[in-house]
């Protein structure tokens, strides 16, 4: 059976926020791959433990685009810890819901962000240096 996106999802699909790259990003993280048909690259700039800027590029379906868009909008300006609380459930809620078979697409951005911060912390952990 087909599925239906609500207006808000469509709006984010048609006018995605924060698309692009950040040249001097602190972290660049890619999840997925063209082989699995879903791929997202997240560019993050941090300042004083806050997400100063974030951009994305995605090779993915409409839900992947819309969830990445709203996710970047939601984490921008937040502290890293606050941003880590924006899980896929939060994203789906913020969009007013997704068709059941599309819910998994909302994992891409939070996953990428989570991985990114983990890597970043590891790299900047004084104990590890």
């Amino acid at each position, binding site marked *: 059976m087909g599925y239906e996106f609500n207006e808000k999802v*469509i709006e984010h699909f048609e006018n995605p926020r924060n698309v692009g790259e950040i040249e001097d990003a602190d972290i660049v993280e890619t999840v997925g791959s*063209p082989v*699995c048909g*879903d791929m997202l690259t997240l560019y993050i700039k941090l300042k004083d433990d806050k997400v100063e800027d974030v951009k994305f590029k995605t090779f993915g*379906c409409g839900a992947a685009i819309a969830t990445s868009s709203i996710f970047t909008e939601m984490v921008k300006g937040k502290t890293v810890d606050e941003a880590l609380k924006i899980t896929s459930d939060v994203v789906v809620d913020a969009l007013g819901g997704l068709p059941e*078979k599309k819910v*998994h697409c909302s994992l891409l951005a939070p996953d990428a962000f989570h991985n990114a911060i983990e890597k970043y912390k590891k790299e900047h952990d004084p104990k590890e240096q």
Partner: protein
Amino acid sequence: MKRVYLDNSATTAVDRAVIETMLPYFDKAYGNASSFHSFGREAARALESARDQVATLIGAKPSEIYFTAGGTESDNIAILGIAYANRDKGNHIITSAIEHPAVLETCRHLEESGFKVTYLPVDIDGRVSLSDLRDAITEETILITIMHANNEIGTIQHVRDMGALARDRNIAFHTDAVQSIGKVPLDVEFSNIDLLSISSHKLHGPKGVGALYVREGTAITPVIFGGGHERGLRPSTENVPGIVGFGKACEIAHNRLDEDIEHMSSLRDKLIKGILDAIPKSVLNGPCSDRLCNNVNISFEAVEGEALILALDRVGIAASTGSACSSKKSTASHVLLATGLSEQMAYGSLRISLSRFTTEDDIGYVLEKLPPIVERLRSMSPLWKEE
């Protein structure tokens, strides 16, 4: 908003003339075709004239046509029915890697119950090689089922030669002709076909109706059980209005076949050329010759198909893709992958399928709207490298 329907391989609009023909059978001549009274006889007569119309389109005898509930059921009855009827002769079935799920899943089911199935590979055009087929035949082979034309990339197979090979070895030959009927001239005699599946809704007839052609003398076992309708092969009260509409759709397709093919081929070629010219890094999937007159299938580098379909939908264009991002994970078309296309390109495929009702205008609209959409999606894609 303008709406342009270009997903005719998924389903088609029912022809007005077909609707008109069906209408009286809903509330005037509504009898059960098995009943012994005037209402029943009207229904039975309508059924038999529809049987003639379907038979005429494929060069069969009316008595060789069995009405079903659609292409899937025709495929199931053909494959399971032949397999079960010939169990004592052998347990080997040959099919291709690019069949519709109605064939592939039925074959997989048979594998679970002790049959052996060979899934023949295809070349870059989606074509099964005759020598591969010849080599695959064993003493145990009881059925060869190869589709006439592919639903995704439009490849038309050389069924006549395959049929001859099968006949020569006394093996039943079935072809899923759901996509080709009404778009490719086909004669079951000429093409040595023993069983053939058709679905009404792919040729401007109503949904939920189909037919299975079974050559006289072919041993086949029923797989649905009940009141003995359709000579026991497909019991259930006959869907008279649906069958009448299907018959009419076949008659129309028969009468306009040459004209329809010419119309669709010319629009198809214009569309293919227009897209490939306008959009860099786009490739045509499927063959250049012996291709369904209504099929266009093109992949765009770095673009994901479902996003493309959604963007097209937003400007009123209905098309489809070989990408299905469903429940758990995305899957690329098994057909495109079988032709050797990369996953990325398979995910980025767009199928545009025409019908006799498609106009120059529709094609022009696609050529206007598609390039900027592909450009926009590429600008968002991490895989796209500007040159």
